[in-house]
C-alpha cells in the first residue's frame, strides 16, 4: 500500500520525462518550486503567479495545485508577492547522458584526428603516436627489422598518401602480394599455387600471399602455419589426415631414376659378399658404405676408394684401351729410305720384294673413327694409316695429335695423350714401319702407354684414370651429322662403352645416360644425388634417431635400414642399364610404401600434418638483404 496519496488531478501535474532541466533548488536538496524550469532551461519559478488587475485591485492567480490564493497577495505594483530569486536549473540525467555521449564522440574523433595528423617519421615519438591510430599490432621478428626505414609503406602502399587518395584506397582491393614480392622470390610464378605452372585449368586459383600469411600477429607468431584442411581445400582429393585418405605413394617411389653407379645390392649381398675369397673385404652392414654422418634426404655412400676399391681396384688395370692397332695392309706405301732416315736402320728389317703385312687385324675403332675410314676396307685406310705411322716415326706424338684434332674431338689431345712418351711412340712406329712387331722390353705392370706388338695401348693406372676418362668422354661426344661418321662413332662407343669389355671396366659400373631424348650421352662419373625438392622432403638424419614401433633403432647398423628399405631380389636391376634411359629402371629395393611411414605417422603417434613433408613454395629465396646491419 502506498502512503502517498497525492494523486488528485489538481495536486499532481503531468511529469515530463523528456524535459532537459530540473529545478536548481531541488537539485541542491532544497524545496523545489512547483513550476519547474522553462523549456529553454531558465528558472520558471521566480514568481508563483501573474497577478491580475481586476479594476484597480491586483488579485493573486496562483494555481490550485500550488496552493491556490497566497497569503501575501500581489504587491502594489502588480508583482507577485511570493517571488524568490531564480535558481540555476540543473540538467536532468537524460540530458547529462546526451552530453556525455557527445563528449565521448568528440573525444574519440579528436583523438583520431590528432593522432593521424601528427607529422614526423616513424622512428620519432610523434610518428609512433600517429601510428597508434593505425597500428594493428607487432610484426613478426622477420619483418619487424627491415620495415623501420620505410615504415608502413613497405607493405601498405596507401600509407602516408594524401587524405582523398587514402580514403579512395578503401574502395578498391589492395594488392599486398606485390609488396611481398619486393623481397621474396620463388623459382616459379609467385601467384600460382605451389609456384608451379599448371596446365590451364579454371579451377586453379590465383594465389595471394595474404591468403595464408597474415601479419601483425605479434613478434613471435608463426605466420607460415597451415592446417591440413587448408591444404585440402585446394586439392581435389581431399582427405582428413595422412593415415586416412592420403594417396598411396607412387609405384616406384623413391627410385624413379637409376643410380649413376651400377651397384647391384642384391647380387652383392647374396653372392659376392658371401664368396670366401672376398668376404673379408665385404662391408659389415649398410652403414659401412652409406655414411650416416652426412645423412639428409639421401644417405650418400662413400666413394670408390673407400667403398669399392678393396674388391674392384685390381679389375681396372686389367682392361686396356687399344688406341691404335696395326691393321693389315695390302701394300706398303712407306718409303724405305725415309723410314731408315727416321728410325735408323733396323737390322731385322728384311728387304723383300713382296710385301707381306705382319698384321692381319682390323683397325682399332678409335683410329677408324678418327681417320674416318671403314675398318675393313684395306684400301681406304691403308695409306692413311701408313702415313700416320710415318709421322709417328718421325716425331713421335705429333701425328697423333694431328689425327685427334683432325677428327674434331671434343677432348683436348693433351688429356688424351697424356703420358705418351714420344720416344716410345717413335720406336713403336719404327718397328711397324719396318713391318715388324714392336716388342716390349717387359710386360706392362704399371699404368700408362704401351706399345704391344701391333697395338698402341693405354693401360689405366687405377680408378678415375684421367686419360682413359678422356678417351671415354671422347667416345661419348663423338658423332656428326654424317651417317657414316655416326656409324663409326657408334661402333667406337659400342666397344669402349661395353660394360663387359670396355677399357678400364669403367662402364661396368658407371651408367651412360641420355638425359634428353635426342640429346647427348653422358657418362655418370659421380654419385647422383637426387636434388632435394621442397615439394616433398624427407630427412634420414631426423629419422635415424628414432626407434620403430617394433623396437628397432633406426640407427642400428644391422637392422635399422631394413626397417624401411627392403631388398627386392627378383628385380631386374641389370636390365635397367641396358639403355641410355635413366627412367627405365628396376630398383634393388622394394619401393617405399605409405604403410611404412604410417607405422609411425599415424593418429596418436607421431604428427602427420601436411607441412611435415610437403613445403608449399618452390625454392623460396630473397631478392634483397634481410638483415638490418649494413656491415
Amino acid at each position, binding site marked *: *500500500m*502506498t502512503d*502517498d496519496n*497525492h*494523486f*488528485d*488531478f*489538481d495536486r*499532481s*501535474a*503531468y*511529469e*515530463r*520525462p*523528456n*524535459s*532537459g532541466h530540473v529545478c536548481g533548488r531541488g537539485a541542491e536538496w532544497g524545496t523545489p518550486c512547483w513550476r519547474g524550469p*522553462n*523549456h529553454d532551461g531558465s528558472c520558471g519559478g521566480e514568481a508563483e503567479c*501573474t497577478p*491580475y*488587475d*481586476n479594476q484597480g485591485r491586483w488579485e493573486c*492567480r496562483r*494555481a490550485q495545485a500550488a496552493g491556490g490564493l497566497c497569503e501575501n497577495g500581489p504587491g502594489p505594483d502588480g508583482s507577485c508577492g511570493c517571488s524568490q530569486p531564480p535558481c540555476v536549473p540543473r540538467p536532468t540525467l537524460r540530458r547529462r547522458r546526451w552530453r556525455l555521449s557527445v563528449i565521448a564522440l568528440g573525444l574519440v574523433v579528436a583523438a583520431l584526428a590528432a593522432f593521424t595528423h601528427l607529422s614526423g617519421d616513424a622512428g620519432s615519438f610523434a610518428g609512433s603516436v600517429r601510428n597508434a591510430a593505425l597500428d594493428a599490432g607487432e610484426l613478426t621478428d622477420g619483418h619487424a627489422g627491415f620495415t623501420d626505414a620505410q615504415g608502413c609503406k613497405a607493405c601498405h602502399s596507401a600509407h602516408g598518401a594524401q587524405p582523398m587518395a587514402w580514403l579512395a584506397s578503401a574502395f578498391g582491393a589492395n594488392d599486398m602480394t606485390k609488396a611481398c614480392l619486393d623481397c621474396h622470390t620463388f623459382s616459379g610464378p609467385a601467384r600460382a599455387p605451389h609456384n608451379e605452372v599448371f596446365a590451364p585449368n579454371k579451377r586453379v586459383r590465383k594465389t595471394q600471399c595474404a591468403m595464408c600469411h597474415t601479419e601483425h600477429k605479434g613478434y613471435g607468431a608463426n605466420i607460415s602455419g597451415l592446417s591440413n584442411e587448408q591444404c585440402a581445400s585446394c586439392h581435389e582429393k581431399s582427405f582428413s589426415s595422412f593415415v586416412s585418405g592420403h594417396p598411396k605413394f607412387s609405384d616406384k617411389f623413391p627410385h624413379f631414376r637409376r643410380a649413376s653407379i651400377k651397384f647391384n645390392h642384391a647380387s652383392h649381398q647374396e653372392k659376392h659378399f658371401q664368396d670366401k675369397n672376398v668376404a673379408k673385404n665385404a662391408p659389415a652392414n649398410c652403414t659401412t658404405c652409406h655414411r650416416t654422418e652426412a645423412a639428409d634426404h639421401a644417405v650418400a655412400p662413400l666413394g670408390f676408394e673407400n667403398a669399392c676399391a678393396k674388391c674392384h681396384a685390381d679389375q681396372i688395370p686389367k682392361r686396356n684401351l687399344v688406341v691404335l692397332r696395326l691393321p693389315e695392309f695390302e701394300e706398303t706405301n712407306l718409303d724405305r729410305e725415309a723410314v731408315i732416315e727416321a728410325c735408323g736402320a733396323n737390322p731385322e728389317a728384311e728387304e723383300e720384294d713382296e710385301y707381306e703385312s705382319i698384321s692381319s687385324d682390323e683397325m682399332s675403332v678409335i683410329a677408324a673413327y678418327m681417320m674416318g675410314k671403314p675398318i675393313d676396307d684395306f684400301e681406304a685406310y691403308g695409306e692413311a694409316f701408313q702415313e700416320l705411322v710415318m709421322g709417328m716415326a718421325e716425331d713421335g706424338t705429333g701425328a697423333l695429335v694431328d689425327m685427334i684434332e683432325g677428327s674434331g674431338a671434343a677432348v683436348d689431345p693433351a688429356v688424351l695423350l697424356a703420358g705418351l712418351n714420344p720416344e716410345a711412340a717413335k720406336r713403336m712406329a719404327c718397328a711397324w714401319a719396318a713391318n715388324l712387331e714392336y716388342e716390349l722390353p717387359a710386360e706392362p705392370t704399371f699404368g700408362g702407354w704401351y706399345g704391344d706388338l701391333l697395338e698402341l695401348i693405354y693401360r689405366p693406372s687405377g680408378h678415375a684414370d684421367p686419360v682413359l676418362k678422356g678417351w671415354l668422354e671422347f667416345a661419348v661426344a663423338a658423332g656428326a651429322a654424317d651417317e657414316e661418321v655416326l656409324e663409326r662413332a657408334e661402333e667406337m662407343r659400342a666397344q669402349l662403352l661395353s660394360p663387359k669389355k670396355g677399357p678400364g671396366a669403367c662402364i661396368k659400373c658407371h651408367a651412360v645416360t641420355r638425359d634428353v631424348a635426342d640429346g647427348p650421352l653422358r657418362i655418370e662419373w659421380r654419385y647422383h644425388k637426387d636434388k632435394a625438392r621442397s615439394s616433398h622432403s624427407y630427412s634420414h638424419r631426423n629419422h635415424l634417431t628414432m626407434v620403430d614401433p617394433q623396437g628397432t633403432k633406426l640407427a642400428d647398423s644391422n637392422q635399422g635400414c631394413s626397417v624401411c628399405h627392403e631388398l627386392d631380389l627378383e628385380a631386374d636391376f641389370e636390365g635397367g642399364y641396358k639403355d641410355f634411359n635413366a627412367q627405365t629402371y628396376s630398383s634393388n629395393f622394394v619401393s617405399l610404401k605409405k604403410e611404412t611411414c604410417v607405422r609411425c605417422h599415424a593418429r596418436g603417434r607421431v604428427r602427420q600434418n601436411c607441412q611435415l613433408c610437403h613445403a608449399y613454395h618452390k625454392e623460396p629465396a630473397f631478392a634483397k638483404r634481410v638483415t638490418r646491419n649494413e656491415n
Partner: protein
Amino acid sequence: MSIAHFTRPQRWDSPFDPEMGESDIASLMERPLIAAINAETFPDNTPLAGILQNDTRIVHYKTGDIVVREGDYGNSAFLILGGKLRVFVDDYPDALLGRDTTGKKGFFATISQIWNNSIIPEVRDTEKYGSQTVRSADGRETRSRKRKDSNRVFVQDIPAILDECRTAEMGEDEIFGELAALGRIPRTATIFAETDATLLEIRWQGLREIRRFDDGFRRVIDRRYRQNALLVHLRETKLFAKLDEDVLGKVADATLFETYGTFDWQVSFKRLRSSGKGSVEHEPAIARQGEYADGLLMIRAGFARVSIEYGSTQRTLTYLGAGGTFGLGELYAAWQSGISVSHGASLTALGYVDVLRVPAQVLEEYVFSETASPAVESIAVGTRTLAEDALLEWAVEERFINATKSMLIDLTRCVRCDDCVRACAATHGGNPRFIRHGKTFGHWMVANACMHCTDPVCMIGCPTGAIHRSEIDGTVIINDETCIGCITCATSCPYNNIRMVEIKNRMGVALVDPDSNRPILKATKCDLCYTNPGGPACLRACPHEALSRVDFRRGALAEGDLS
C-alpha cells in the same frame, strides 16, 4: 477551542436553476404531463412543487442549437414547452456534434511527429480553435464556433442538414431524454432545435422522485422504456434471442425494473469510504445467498458484486457489469428437477445498478422449454487462496471494476525508466497523458491513466459534448477543440485520471482568458492512442513488459497468475 457554526447542507441548497420562480411553477403545473401527476402522493419533504422548483429549469434554445447528442451521457430529461425540435433518424455528420472526426494518422503524419513534437508543454495551434474568443498573454485574439454567452455548439446550416439527413419532428408536450437520465445509458438520439424552443430540463434527481411517487408518471416512463429499449435489450440477450415477437412481448411485459445504489456514486463513494461505510456489508443487496431464486437478474447498467459468505464477512467471487446475468444456473436446475433452488451467492450493488428481473414462471413457461441448457459460467471459489483473489477484491473495493483498460503496472518488473510516459508524450505532440503513479496493491500499481470505464461518470455533465465515447471501440475521447475547460469531467472522475492543462501558443506564451486573466484550460486524458497506427504507445514501449491495459475480471487479464 472555538466553534465555527455551519448549517448542514440540504438537498436543495444548490437548485438546478435558482431563478425558477412561482410563476414558472404555476405555468408548468398546467402542462398536461405535469397536471396528470398527483401532487398528494409526494412526501412533505419533497413536494412536487419543490421538485419543480429545485430540480428543473426552463431552458431556451435558439434555432440550430443542439439539445442532446447521441452517445453522450446525460442526466437530464426534457419536456418541450414550446417550439419545434428535430430528431435524427439516420446517420448525421459527426462534426455537427463537436465530435472529434480525425481518423488514424497516415504514415507521413506519424513520421512527422518526430520533428513536430514540441519541447514546449501543451502547445496548441490556435488557428484550429475556430471562433472561441481566446487571448494570448500578448493580446492577440482568436474566435471559436461557440456562442458568446452560452456554451453550446450549434448547427450552422439547418436547411442543408434537413435536406441531407432524415429527421423526425418533435413538438410541444413531448418528453425525451429520460432513458439516459435514469438508465445510465448513452443518449439514443441527437436532437436539435429547428426553431427557437423552450424546454423544461428535469435533472435526474427530480425525475427519479416523480417517478417514484407518481404511478402514472412511472407508467408513462416505463411504457416508453418498454416500447423503445427493453425489447431491443432482450432481443440482444442470448437467452431470449430465439423467441418470437409475441413471446418476447410477454416476457417484456412481465419484466420488473429495479434500481439500486446511488446514481452519482462517485460522489458518495468517497464520502462513504472516509466514514467507514464503504465495505460490502453496506452495499444494497439485490439478492442474498440462501434466498429462493425467484427470477433471473440481468444487469442493465452499473455493477454488482457477486460474493459468498466467508467467515464473518463476504468474499468477492467476481463482479457483473451490463449484460451480466445472475441466477440462471439455479433457475434452470430448479426447472429441470422440479425442486426450488436457492441462490449460491449474494448480489450487491456497487455504486449504482439498474437491474431487470425476469420472473421464474415466465422463464419456465416461455423460455426454458425453447432453449437448450444454457452455458453458465461457474464462479465457485475452488481451491484458490485468499492471496490469489486479493487483487480482485482490492480492485472491487477501489471500484476499478469500472475499467476496461486500466493501466496495470507490475512493480517488480518496472524499472521506473518512464519509457511509457515518453511514448505517450511522443504520440501526443510531446505531452504525456498519464502519470506513472497511482494506488498500489502489493506489487501492482493502477496508474492514473484513463481506464475507459464501462460507466463513464466523467461524461455526465459535459456542456459541449467534447468528452464523448467512440462508438467503434468504446474509447472515451476528449475533443480538444470543443473543450471549454470547465473541469466538470476532471472533478467527476473518481480515479483522478483527467487532468487540466494550461495551453500555450507556438511561441510558448501562455494563452489567457481576456476577461478573467485566468489561463485557458483544456481537459486531457489517455485516449488509447486512437489516432495512432499501432494502438496504445505505452504498451509497446515498455521494455520489460511491466505495463498492461486490463479489465479486472477474471479471465480478462493478459497474464496468468497475478499473485
